[in-house]
């Protein structure tokens, strides 16, 4: 077996590995850390994955961005060997998902969409158990658990049963479990859903820290700003298909700049306001009831200009603001339609 001996568990910092760009046994990963080719997966007549190709370079972050039901979780489950694809192939850390499951699993950490913690165990016991199942000895697993509890701000709660944890605490415990073995590849399925802004930021920093050590990360998200901040590349997925793929800048170029939204005091003059403001944008402004919305070419000065133009025409303004493009805007510009509600799913947050 390729598993390291008990006395040399993967969780010990002193293993031959100096960076996390290598496998847990210290060998180098040839080529990209994650490669998926032509993945298909159907559930009944739902095409959860349809001809999905993905490539995540070693030490980089791929953001898989998509609305409810897009197929994000299905993609993660296939890559983490929890689900067999109907067709197509994939390797993670150089190991084939179908044929080399065990070696693959030694080299990944997974934090699923819903926190998978044993509620009857304490936080420390949860992490120690996971460490032991990665092959660490008891002392090593305990030490690693304490380290992670500290890092995820759970030290105080470490000796309490996880059933007493809040949603955000469970989430953090689950993420800690994914990092126990310091694996070179990590899958995070909507890691920040349900976290408060402070924990969210802390998690982003943790992920950035891992990446600077060479870890490869595939994370799914429904938030463009999250993908923008963390990901080297973003793949946009909808109805099981990758509909766009590129660096955040490339995508934003395709989506266009920021949105200016002006709410008018008198909605009767919306059409007039729209034609005045059209000079700020390449596209036609959209009028929605008493609001005019447009994509601005240049962020700088856009607000001042808009205020001036409207006050010269003596059009009263109720509210006015610049908004960064959301995932809705991404979809609108990539597919021409807004995100469709998926009846099977509860509406996601945001």
């Amino acid at each position: 077996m390729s598993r390291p001996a008990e006395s040399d568990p993967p969780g010990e910092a002193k293993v031959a590995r100096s960076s996390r760009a290598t496998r847990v046994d210290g060998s180098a990963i040839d080529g990209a850390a994650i490669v998926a080719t032509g993945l298909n997966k159907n559930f009944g007549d739902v095409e959860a994955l349809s001809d999905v190709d993905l490539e995540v370079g070693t030490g980089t972050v791929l953001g898989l961005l998509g609305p409810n039901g897009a197929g994000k979780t299905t993609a993660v489950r296939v890559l983490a060997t929890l689900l067999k694809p109907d067709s197509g192939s994939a390797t993670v850390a150089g190991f084939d998902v179908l044929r080399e499951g065990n070696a693959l699993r030694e080299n990944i950490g997974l934090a699923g969409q819903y926190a998978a913690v044993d509620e009857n165990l304490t936080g420390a016991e949860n992490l120690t158990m996971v460490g032991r199942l990665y092959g660490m000895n008891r002392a090593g697993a305990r030490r690693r658990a304490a380290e992670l509890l500290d890092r995820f701000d759970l030290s105080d709660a470490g000796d309490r049963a996880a059933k007493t944890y809040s949603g955000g605490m469970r989430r953090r415990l689950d993420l800690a479990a994914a990092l126990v073995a310091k694996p070179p590849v990590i899958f995070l399925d909507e890691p920040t859903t349900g976290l408060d802004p402070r924990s969210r930021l802390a998690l982003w920093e943790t992920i950035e820290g891992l990446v600077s050590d060479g870890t490869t990360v595939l994370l799914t998200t429904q938030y463009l700003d999250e993908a923008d901040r963390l990901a080297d590349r973003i793949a946009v997925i909808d109805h099981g298909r990758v509909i766009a793929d590129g660096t955040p800048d490339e995508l934003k170029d395709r989506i266009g700049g920021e949105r200016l939204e002006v709410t008018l005091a008198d909605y009767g003059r919306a059409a007039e306001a729209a034609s005045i403001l059209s000079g700020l944008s390449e596209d036609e402004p959209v009028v929605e009831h008493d609001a005019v919305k447009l994509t601005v070419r240049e962020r700088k000065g856009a607000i001042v200009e808009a205020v001036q133009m409207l006050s010269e025409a003596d059009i009263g303004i109720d509210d006015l603001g610049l908004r960064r493009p959301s995932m809705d805007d991404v979809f609108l510009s990539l597919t021409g339609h807004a995100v469709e509600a998926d009846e099977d799913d509860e509406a996601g947050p945001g």
Partner: protein
Amino acid sequence: MKRLLVDTLVITERNLIRLPRSPDLLLAFTVQPIMFVLLFVYVFGGAISTPGFTYVDFLIPGIIVQNIAFGGFVTAIGLNEDLSKGLIDRFRSLPMARPAVLAGRTLADVVTNLLSVIVLLITGFIIGFSFGTGIGEILAGLLLLMFFGYAFSWVFALLGLMVSSPESANSLGFIAVFPLTFISSAFVPVDSMPAALQWFADINPFTFMVDAMRSLWLGSPAGNSIWGAVAWTVAILVIFAPLAVGRYRSAAGT
């Protein structure tokens, strides 16, 4: 192989840690069987004639066998919860030995089964039960009991992986196992039953098992009951353990 052993023990430990923290579970292991014993002995006992035995002596092996068979409920319910809470996904994403999740569960059942046997025996002693054999046979009986319970834990493991909720694991298991234990020699002598039921009771694994226990603990003639009980236990184990492991491998997957 060493992996399988270590991982199994890690999972066993995980399942046992929770016991002292769940008073309701402990109650199910202790108070419930005691109530059953008392009800049977004092409510039905006087009306059931058991030639050659006092009813307490007759009943204790029977009720212990019934209890042991139900010990696997913890496995069914626990596995089902693990499945719905995503823990099975977590385990399946780890480089652990795959059968260890089930092996650890069923091994933990052996510990809880032992606990409930001890509780029942103490209750029995208090109300007049006594062994009629030597220490060797008593221990052999205990061993057979544990083995039988272990085999049933695999039946419940499969059940827990197949049903959609812990509640249905509970009721399905009950529907399947409860009648089996009653149409056997556990609570009444088989020859007091109508012919059709007698026919069924005679091939019922519980009859073999209970008769074997009576022979090992009370000294009644064994006939073929001990070998029959061992054969049934082995058969249940070799059928259900692979089925459960197969189901686990594909659980939530496919």
